[in-house]
């Protein structure tokens, strides 16, 4: 009886729901990997020590999202003392800026959650507190999103 076939849906009553109770529960995929994975293109992180202020990222950015700001504390180091400021009201997370970056200091982190009531919160200088920088992998809890929190390495 094809009329009664939809009643197969009642089997879900006896099952555990498929839902992820999001704020309380982590999103895992079938193999148990945490989602989103580390390859997700979220907000940038920039190693201010490694960055040389070459303006390459701003030139390649097709959305005009990257502007530069001066950090006087960086005077006297290699390169210029300007560092990129990303406007996330423009950025489309294409990753061209990280590909072109000659020192590999600019990365896209899997951090994507930013909810705010003020639109000016979306323009900031991506920074990173680096303890060990030989690894490409970015340690998430070491990323900070405010230039004011920048501390010198030594």
């Amino acid at each position: 009886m094809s009329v009664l076939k939809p009643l197969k849906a009642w089997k879900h009553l006896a099952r555990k729901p498929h839902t992820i109770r999001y704020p309380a529960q982590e999103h895992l995929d079938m193999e148990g990997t945490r989602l989103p994975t580390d390859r997700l293109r979220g907000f940038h992180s920039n190693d201010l020590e490694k960055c040389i202020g070459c303006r390459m990222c701003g030139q390649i950015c097709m959305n005009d999202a990257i502007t530069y700001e001066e950090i006087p504390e960086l005077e006297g180091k290699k390169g210029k003392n300007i560092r990129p400021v990303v406007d996330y009201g423009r950025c489309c997370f294409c990753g061209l800026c990280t590909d072109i970056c000659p020192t590999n200091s600019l990365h896209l982190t899997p951090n994507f959650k930013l909810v705010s009531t003020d639109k000016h919160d979306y323009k900031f200088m991506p920074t990173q507190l680096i303890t060990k920088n030989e690894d490409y992998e970015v340690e998430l809890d070491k990323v900070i999103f405010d230039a004011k929190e920048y501390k010198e390495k030594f």
Partner: protein
Amino acid sequence: MRYEEWNKISRIASRKSLWMLHFCTGCGAVELPPVMTSRYDMERFGMGPMATPRQADVLLITGYLTVKTLKRVVNVYEQMQSPKYVISFGSCPINGGMYWDSYNTVKRLDRYLPVDVYVGGCMPRPEGVMNAFLELMKLIDEGKARGWEKYQKYYEQYKRNQKMAFGFERGKNEGD
């Protein structure tokens, strides 16, 4: 019962029962099905899609807004019954996003409608969308989500900006 207490009951009730308008303007509409359906299930918070603006509490601006859509969005927003809230998704309503030099995309939504919560990303993942809903609930609970009062207070400024975007003023300046 005093007005303040009544207000508090209203806030508590509307926080747990936010009905969103099912009106999708841009690419962010794709992020809503996982949020609405069984994977993230926003009905856990009492949220649900509603068919008409009269019944809805939350207006979602899911992505870019063209001038033509803005006209409809403003109509829809004014039909909603207050307290009403606006959530803007993604980069485009913040500062133009990918369409920053487009001839037809209004770039900063807060000049035309009062926005309560912004979500970053292009587009945000469903977790980001859920975060925005939770943030809005928190704001309502604290009594800070007052976009609709702002819209009433600065109505003339909003109307002037909307008219400028719709091209009435533009046409007048050129003399036709």
